[in-house]
């Protein structure tokens, strides 16, 4: 389980950005999480509580936006969404495709911060 170390990296990055902006507290973190990121949501949420303790992010909320895998299908000439990460084939024409356009994200989209009065 590497979600705890990922949670620490997340808290460090969000904390740095918040401090640079002069924030006194972080209320929430919005995270984009791709189906191929290798990170399990539940484990990350568990790690988040531990990693945020005694930081600017203490008691903040973690909002996770899960992103399915999207690949480019050369036959249909468009991006399509995979129904399963166990089947890298176009759901419409069944052509194999490994041209991933979405799904590896493990990215902080934004944070909600509190500024001093």
């Amino acid at each position, binding site marked *: 389980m590497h979600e705890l170390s990922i949670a620490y990296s997340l808290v460090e990055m969000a904390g740095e950005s*918040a401090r640079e902006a002069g924030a006194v507290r972080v209320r929430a973190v919005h995270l984009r999480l791709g189906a191929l990121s290798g990170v399990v949501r539940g484990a990350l949420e568990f790690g988040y509580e531990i990693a945020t303790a005694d930081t600017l992010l203490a008691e903040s909320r973690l909002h996770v936006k899960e992103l399915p895998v999207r690949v480019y299908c050369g036959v249909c000439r468009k991006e399509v969404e995979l129904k399963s990460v166990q089947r890298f084939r176009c759901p419409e024409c069944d052509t194999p495709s490994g041209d991933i356009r979405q799904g590896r994200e493990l990215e902080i989209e934004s944070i909600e911060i509190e500024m001093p009065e």
Partner: protein
Amino acid sequence: MKARVLEIRKGVLNKNDEIARGLRERLHAAGVLTINLVSSPGTGKTALLQRTLRELREQGSSVAALVGDLATDNDARRLAEAGVPVKQINTDGRCHLEAQMVSDHLSDWDLDRLDYLFIENVGNLVCPSSYDLGEDLRVVLLSVTEGEDKPLKYPNIFNSADVAVLTKMDLAEACEFDIEAARANIAAVRPGMRIVSTSAKSGVGVQEWLSCLAEEKQSRLVGV
């Protein structure tokens, strides 16, 4: 309290990725092909690596290896028998290697004299998939004793790899290993990925594996 939203749009593993990028540039500039070996514990990373290091050395190539383990230096000692530089990276219980650990352990090696650098990751099919180590090739190993459906159970790591190596082919018959099913499962999660069947013990497929490395070195480092 005044509240506001701050846009970040940065990868959580940005720091690791930046270190990995720097490493890759350094290794490329020195003409080194770097290979990150990932698999479950017991798939035979060390056995394949032992044989690979020995054969490459006999061919006149200059090779070195970094070996990640949660504890012990048994693998590093096994590999050192091949007579090449080997360093153990002890992760102190961490389940994967990170780019910084690789960078720290390269500091006293003369990269300009190296042709191939192998990194044996911690035996784990989950966590190493998220961490770029600055490698050119991520090679995922699957032994015939593990069953054909491993790629479907761990699609992330197979999807993140560049080459799949089947190991312990000398046991295939005894295990009733269905190689076509294994190939189909690998192709399902990573269409088009090159698959090499090997046995470090009997030597089957080892030449093909060495050719694969030579071809990758040629295509990835040409003109560097």
